[in-house]
């Protein structure tokens, strides 16, 4: 069969399929904005701009090469790359915060394994804290507190998110709780990032190391003898979260009172869905 005939056959075949499908009405509508070509066509503009910006930045700013590794000379500051600092910060929290390590670090130490004698006889061998030790827990390695204790809830939250947050709402305004949880996540990751370079911060801004409210707090809550930096890292996420929640609620009330047109439409639309 010649190429020409074959080509012609393809064209006819395509036409036949088209009309057949139209007659069959097997086409199903989708719930979503089409990715191709509608989304991609407008993305292409941004992508061209991005490519240009990339080449521009690259030609202006080459990346430096550090001095070679010296296993004997540990540098004063060791840091992972910036996008892993949050993880390093969680490790440091696990190490530094007495609230996680028990009074005087009583809950951490050499880890017990279930094949160790200590695992089975905690009342006998455990540290003298006056707190009854659950045999299942056992003292943990301080690194484990940050590694397992602080990373796991985060990862579980992110993985499980679509399975516990259901429903049709799609805008932060419709679900103030989820919106403020997102803000909390963002803020905690940011403050963990900041805390991970705490020695640099103490060095440059010694005021950050000032102990806060020691006399007032010490008699009641020993484990809260934090410095300014720790208090900021703990309070900023909470403030932002509460602020987001209250802010959205207040904004919604106000919109409702005013009978805002867009707000009403959105609400009706939400009901229709």
């Amino acid at each position, binding site marked *: 069969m010649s190429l020409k005939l074959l080509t012609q056959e*393809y064209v006819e075949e395509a036409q036949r399929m088209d009309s057949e499908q139209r007659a069959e009405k097997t086409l199903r509508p989708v719930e979503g904005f089409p990715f191709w070509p509608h989304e991609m066509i407008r993305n292409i503009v941004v992508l061209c701009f991005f490519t240009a910006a990339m080449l521009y930045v690259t030609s202006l700013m080459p*990346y430096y090469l550090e001095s070679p*590794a010296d296993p004997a000379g540990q540098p004063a500051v060791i840091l992972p790359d910036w996008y892993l600092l949050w993880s390093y910060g969680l490790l440091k929290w696990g190490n530094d915060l007495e609230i996680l390590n028990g009074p005087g670090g009583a809950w951490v130490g050499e880890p017990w394994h279930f094949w160790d004698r200590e695992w089975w006889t905690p009342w006998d061998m455990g540290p003298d804290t006056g707190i009854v030790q659950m045999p299942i827990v056992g003292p943990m390695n301080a690194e484990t507190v940050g*590694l397992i204790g602080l990373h796991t809830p985060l990862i579980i939250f*992110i993985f499980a998110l679509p399975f516990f947050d259901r429903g049709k*709402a799609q805008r*932060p305004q419709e679900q103030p709780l989820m919106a403020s949880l997102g803000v909390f996540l963002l803020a905690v990751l940011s403050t963990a990032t900041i805390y991970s370079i705490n020695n640099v911060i103490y060095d440059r801004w010694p005021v950050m190391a000032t102990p806060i409210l020691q006399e007032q707090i010490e008699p009641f809550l020993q484990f809260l003898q934090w410095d300014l930096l720790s208090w900021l890292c703990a309070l900023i996420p909470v403030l932002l979260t509460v602020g987001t929640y209250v802010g959205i609620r207040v904004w919604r009330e106000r919109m409702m009172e005013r009978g805002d047109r867009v707000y009403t439409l959105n609400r009706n639309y939400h009901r229709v869905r």
Partner: protein
Amino acid sequence: MGPETSDTMDARRDGFTEPGPVGRMLLALFAWVDERFRLRNYADEFRHFYYQINLELPRTHTEKYNLRVIWYWYPLYTLGSIAFLAFIFAAISGILLTFYYVPSTAEATVNGVQATEAWESMTVIMTEVPLGFGIRALHFWSGMVMVWAVVLHMFRVYFTQAYKKPRELNWLLGVVLFLLTMGLGYTGYILPWSQLSYWAAIIGLEMSIATPILGQYLAGLLFGGVELGQQTITRMYVLHVILLPLLTFGAAVLHVVIVWWQGIAEPH
């Protein structure tokens, strides 16, 4: 872009009678391959699949209620594409870098400084290879941009709640992509075997050892033992150059295909 109905789509496809010169060439090419591999069966199925998807354009909230507003969060919807493009840039420049990089901790002296062959090959890239510093810069910046884009993309998906039904599995795939991106960054950071690389590897090694029960095995698997050495750099090299990029590419393509399949969660 006005509202599109199934009528206008049909009209466009009715016009598909005579392909242009390029179309004719492509068809001829296709026919040539088809004569050998009988691709037509699959092509028909693929075309059927393609037309089933996204045929009827939904009307957005804006259109439905005739609102005169634009979706001002729109730029955030390009972040996924930016992450993908940055990955492609990093892959191309990375392939060029592997031509010159030597994953070895054998001793080498560069201008009287004690170093390793890995670090020496970095100096070669930076000073001798034509435009080597530029290729490295492109690799570095595309990596940085990719991480930023992925993180911001994740938060855009979170705040527009695009992870809900029917997109749950795509969110999970996205989390995997996020972890892969972090892994790519970490393993790449080790490769030059500079001061920072070395001590970052030490942190990673200590973290894996601190993992309960599995610690020793994890350190052995990822770092080739409880001490840093040639095994470490070999494993990081294989992870950074072969394993993680392949996984990331595969997962990213699947992720985007699923987005194409399901459509973008309707902005409204």
